[in-house]
């Protein structure tokens, strides 16, 4: 009896805390579908109306579209998509070499890869952007994509997964005369779908969040990715808060849905960061 009561209390606690985390998102969604005036009148003084629009409107979404937000969004999508595909290939190749191919200096190379990428990218983004300017690489999709391709966490989680693949599979393929690339492409990659999805999510989230790097390497509006466009709209002399809410909601809903569907792969991938090997 006390056990059941205890469990009920803990469940109520879990539900309460989850709701606290959810409230800002509910407020964001509600504010997307009402006028800014209503947003502020419902929060000061605070009423339940803060979480539910009184007069629904699509005007904010409309003004986001009118001011070209779809272009910014498509920039973000293109950059993230190319990053995920190219980044997965690059990370998986490195992970494969570090997990499967025996060579002198393997452990040391692994340490170098992990150590270099543990230093967060933001820390060296500013001097790097000066280099990009000197090399004439600013204002291009290439500049936006490049930093997302090297991701230590993706390499690390894929290597962990490859280490768990029975070595006998590679040996059997080897006896059949397969080279390393064929073993990588036809044995390891097809087996690694869950790990690849997890690593793909890590690459995607990094790029979808990017803010500092895009403002450093783009000055032309047509290259603004969505987070930059939102920050500009927010910082404008007269801010249209409704539009800012609508754009943020659109920007958040995409990774939100992706994560809802693929969450378990993400959890499985990050699990390997704590393992001993």
């Amino acid at each position, binding site marked *: 009896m006390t056990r059941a009561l205890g469990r009920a209390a*803990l*469940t109520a606690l*879990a*539900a309460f*805390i*989850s*709701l606290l*985390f*959810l409230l*800002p*998102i509910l407020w964001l969604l509600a504010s997307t579908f009402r006028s800014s005036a209503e947003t502020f009148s419902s*929060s*000061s*003084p*605070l009423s339940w109306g803060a979480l539910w629009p009184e007069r629904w409107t699509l005007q904010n979404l409309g003004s986001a579209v009118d001011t070209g937000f779809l272009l910014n969004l498509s920039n973000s999508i293109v950059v993230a998509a190319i990053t995920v595909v190219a980044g997965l290939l*690059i*990370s998986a190749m490195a992970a494969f*070499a*570090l997990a499967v*191919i*025996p*060579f*002198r200096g393997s452990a040391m190379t692994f340490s170098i890869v992990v150590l*270099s990428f*543990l*230093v*967060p990218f933001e*820390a*060296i983004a*500013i*001097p*790097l952007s000066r*280099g990009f300017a000197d090399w004439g690489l600013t204002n291009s999709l290439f500049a936006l994509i*490049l*930093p997302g391709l*090297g991701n230590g966490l993706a390499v690390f989680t894929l290597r962990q997964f490859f280490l768990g693949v029975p070595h006998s599979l590679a040996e059997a393929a080897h006896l059949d005369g397969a080279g*390393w*690339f064929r073993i990588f492409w036809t044995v390891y990659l097809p087996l690694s779908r869950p790990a690849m999805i997890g690593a793909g999510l890590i690459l995607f*989230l990094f790029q*979808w969040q990017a*803010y*500092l790097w895009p403002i450093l390497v783009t000055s032309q509006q047509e290259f603004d990715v969505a*987070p*930059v466009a*939102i*920050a500009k709209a*927010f910082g404008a002399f007269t801010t249209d808060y409704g539009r*800012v809410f609508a754009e*943020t909601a659109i*920007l958040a809903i995409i*990774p939100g849905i992706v*994560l809802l569907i693929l*969450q378990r792969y*993400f*959890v499985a991938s*990050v*699990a390997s*960061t*704590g393992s*001993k090997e």
Partner: protein
Amino acid sequence: MITTTAVRLRRHQATRRNAIAAALFLLPTLLLILILRIVPTVSAVGDSTRDALPGSLAEPEFVGMEQFTRMFASESFWQSVRQTLLFNVVVNPLQILLALALAVLLTRGLPASGFWRTLIFLPAAVPLAGSTIVWGIALRPDGPINGILGLIGVPAQPFLTSPDQVIGSLILLASWIGIGYWMMFLIAGLNDIPTVYYEAARIDGAGPWRTFVSVTLPMLRRPLLFVLVADTVANFVLFAPVQILTSGGPQRASNFLMYDVFHRSFELTDPYSASAELVVLLLIMIGIVLIQFRLLGSDKET
């Protein structure tokens, strides 16, 4: 005799082939490390030994350690160091403790645990610039946070516009995002603990607290260390909230090292003093990462 030589030769060839294959597979990643980490670090160190008039096109001159001596003598640099440390000393333990508590709560097999987990993780999916703006508006004098305070009779607080409250406000914002994200890593770590350890503790008659301290915590050492370090380096370079909401203010109270480097580089167009400050920030990052490596390496023998 002939056969052993042939075997040795073949083995030698295989070793060479493997080395070449490994090099080819690693080539793109090593190139990225060179371009994205080593080149900018070297150029930052190089620039930190030079000086030129802000905005001037003249060739910068070599000044040795002068940027550093000037920086170490400036009160504003030490204020940035103090505020950065203050923020990090609070935000990192706070986030990891709450993430750990939630991870433990949500791995106890309660009803709908997966659902609660997803809700708490959701803020991590909102891009930082977006959540920054939502919280920036929510913390306005006429926003919903002051609305809640109003309901319980507390007068409206200035939050982001007060030098005393700005760090607390940024901690709130960073934690709303970070707690759920790091919680996922810890949940994964908790799920990896073999259940036999818990059964053994139960047979020994250990209560929940005792079990947590003598089974869960030691088994969770590696994931805990990983999230603590990863969270710390991420918060040391927190940028978007400062740039979008406070510009380092009010009264430079949120002028963290990372933002100050940006500010000097672009708003003051003085990349040389910015580089000196960046070198300090980089050394702190590398120090934290090396400490983690030592700690993770040291328990390999045990």
